[in-house]
C-alpha cells in the first residue's frame, strides 16, 4: 500500500451568507496516495472549488480533519499553512494567475523566494524548469506577451519551483483552445509519470476520465469513486 499524502476526514465547510447557511462540504472523506492521479469532477455548486481549497491547504474546514503526510493541518495558522503549501503543493489555476508585472522567469522564481532560497539558485532552477516546459526562449517575457498556452506552461513551471510532491490543477485547460489544452494536459501527465501526485479538478468528463481515480462530487460529498480500467 502506497503512502497516503492527503487525507480528508469528515470535512465540513459552512459559509454564512447573511442569514443563509450554505453547507459547501458536508462530511467529505477522501484519501489521496503518493504518486496517484486523481480527478475530482462535479457540476457547478457541487463543492469542487471548496474541496480544492481544502486539499490545497488554502482554507481550513469548519469541522473535520485534513492530514498532510499524517499531520493534521486543519487548525494551523495561515502563515504556517503558507509554508506547507509553498513546499508541498504546486498550484495550476484556470486563469494562470501569473504576476503581471514580473517576467516568466521572475514568476517561476517567486515561490522559491518565499522559501528563502538564494536568488542565484532560484534563478538557475527557474531557467531549467522553463526549459523543461518548452519556454527557454520566452523567459524574459511578461505574461501579457505570452499566449494562454504559454502562460499556463509558465504556471506549471512555477508549480514545480519548490519541487512539491503534489500538483493541484484547477480546470487547467478551461481557458485554453484544444491544442494548447492538450499540450498542458500532456505536460501534467508527464509530471505524474515522473512520480508527482496529480490532483485535477474539472467539470470536463473527458479530462477527468484520464485520471487513475475519478471522484464524483455532489452536494458537498463524494458520491462515487471510479477506478480507470487499464
Amino acid at each position: 500500500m502506497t503512502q497516503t499524502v492527503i487525507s480528508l476526514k469528515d470535512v465540513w465547510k459552512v459559509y454564512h451568507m447573511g442569514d443563509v447557511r450554505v453547507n459547501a462540504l458536508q462530511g467529505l472523506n477522501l484519501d489521496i496516495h503518493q504518486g496517484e492521479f486523481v480527478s475530482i469532477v462535479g457540476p457547478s455548486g457541487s463543492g469542487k472549488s471548496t474541496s480544492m481549497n481544502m486539499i490545497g491547504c488554502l482554507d481550513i474546514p469548519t469541522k473535520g480533519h485534513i492530514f498532510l503526510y499524517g499531520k493534521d493541518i486543519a487548525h494551523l495558522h495561515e502563515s504556517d499553512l503558507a509554508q506547507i503549501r509553498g513546499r508541498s503543493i504546486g498550484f495550476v489555476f484556470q486563469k494562470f494567475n501569473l504576476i503581471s508585472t514580473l517576467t516568466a522567469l521572475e514568476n517561476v522564481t517567486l515561490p522559491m523566494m518565499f522559501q528563502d532560497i538564494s536568488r542565484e539558485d532560484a534563478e538557475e532552477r527557474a531557467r531549467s524548469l522553463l526549459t523543461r516546459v518548452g519556454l527557454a526562449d520566452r523567459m524574459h517575457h511578461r505574461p501579457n506577451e505570452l499566449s494562454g498556452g504559454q502562460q499556463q506552461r509558465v504556471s506549471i513551471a512555477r508549480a514545480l519551483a519548490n519541487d512539491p510532491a503534489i500538483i493541484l490543477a484547477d480546470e487547467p485547460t478551461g481557458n485554453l483552445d484544444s491544442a494548447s489544452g492538450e499540450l498542458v494536459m500532456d505536460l501534467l501527465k508527464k509530471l505524474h509519470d515522473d512520480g508527482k501526485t496529480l490532483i485535477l479538478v474539472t467539470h470536463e468528463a473527458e479530462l477527468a476520465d484520464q485520471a487513475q481515480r475519478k471522484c464524483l462530487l455532489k452536494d458537498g460529498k463524494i458520491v462515487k469513486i471510479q477506478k480507470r480500467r487499464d
Partner: protein
Amino acid sequence: MLGQSFLYAARGLAHRKLRSWLTMLGIFIGIAAVVALISLSEGLKVAIDEQFSKIGADKIFVLPKGTFGGFESDAARLTVSDKDRLARIPGVDEATTYVFKAGLISLEDENVPVYVTGIPEDAQERALSIEIGTWEIESGKWFDGGDGDKVVIGNDFARTEILDDRLKLGDSVKVNDGTFEVVGILTRIGDPSTDGGVFIDEDMMRDAFGLDDEETNFIGVRLQRGADIAVVQERMERELRKAHDVDEGKEDFEVQSPEELLATFTAIFNIIQAVLIGIAAISLLVGGIGIMNTMYTAVLERTQEIGVMKAVGARNRDILSLFLFESGLLGMAGGVVGIVLGMGLSKGVELVASQVFGSPLIRAFFPIYLIVGALAFAFFVGVLSGVLPAYQAARLQPVDALRYE
C-alpha cells in the same frame, strides 16, 4: 527575499507611472520645502555665527536701553565719561565708543538719507571700534585719525546707484553740510547700517551734527585675557548704575555680550525654523495620506496577486514587507526628487539674494545630516503610510483573495 521585494515593488511602481508620480508629488513638495527652508536658515545661522566670531568672544557692548544695533532712543543717553569709567574697571583691557546718527548724503543735487558713524581719533580706540563693527576695507584705506575731510563708504554706494552715480575712490561727496573725499570702500556684510552707511572722523561728525563732546551711542570694551565675561559684565552694570544714578532693574542702558546676542538670534532662528518645519510637516502629512490612499488602491487592485503569492507560499509577513517596501520606496523616491528640488530652490534663492539684493547673509547650506535626514524621513513617511494598507494585504485569506475579481 529583499531583492525580490525590491523588484516587485519597483515593477509595481513603474507599472503605474502616472499614479506613482502624482502620489510622490505630495512628498516631494514637502521634502523640497523642508530642505530649502532648513538649508537657508542653516546658511543664515552660519553667516551670523561667522559675523559674531569676527567680533570675538572677548567683547562687551553697552547700548542705550531700547536699541538693538539701530538708532538711539530719546531719553537714554550714553556718555564718553561712561566709557572712561568702564575702561578703569578690573578685567577691562580697553574701551571705545562711537556715535552714529541719521544724516543726508549727496553727490550732486539729490539728497539721500544715510547712516553716519563717527570713528574716534585715538588709534587704539579706532582699532577696537573697527574690530567690533567688523568693518573691512574692500578697496582704498581708512583715513588717518583726525583727518576730517575724508570718508569711508559702505559697499552699497559703490555697488548700486543710490546717488546719481556709483561712488568710487577719489569722488567728492557731501554729508550733511561737509564735503568729503572717498578714500575707502567697505566689504559687504549684509547689515544695512554698515553697507548703506558712511564713516567719518568723530570730531568732524560732532561739528557737523552739532553734538556736544559727551554724547555717544555705543560703548564697546575688550576684556583682559582670561577675564570672566559674566563677572566683568556685572561690574560694568554696577558702575553704570552708579554713574547714571539708577536702581537695579530701572537701567537706561543695556550691557550685552556677543554670546548673549548670538543666543538671542539663535533662539529666534529656532522658533522660525520650528514654524517652517511645522508647515513642511503638514505637507508631508498630506503626502503620507496620499501614499496611504495609493497603497490601499494597490492592495485592492492586486488582491488576486496577493492570493497567488499566498498560494505559492508567501507568509503574512512576506506580504507585509512587500507592501511596506513599496510604500517606503514611493516615499524615498519622492524624497530624492524633493531633495534635488529643495537644493535647487535654496540655491536659486541664494543666487537671487546675492545678485539682486546683494545680501551675503542668504546662502544655501547643505549639511550632510540634512540630506541623509530628509531621505530617511521620506522613507519613514512612506513606510508609515504603508503600514495599514500592507497590514490589510497581509491579513487577506488566500481563498478570498484568489476569488477576488
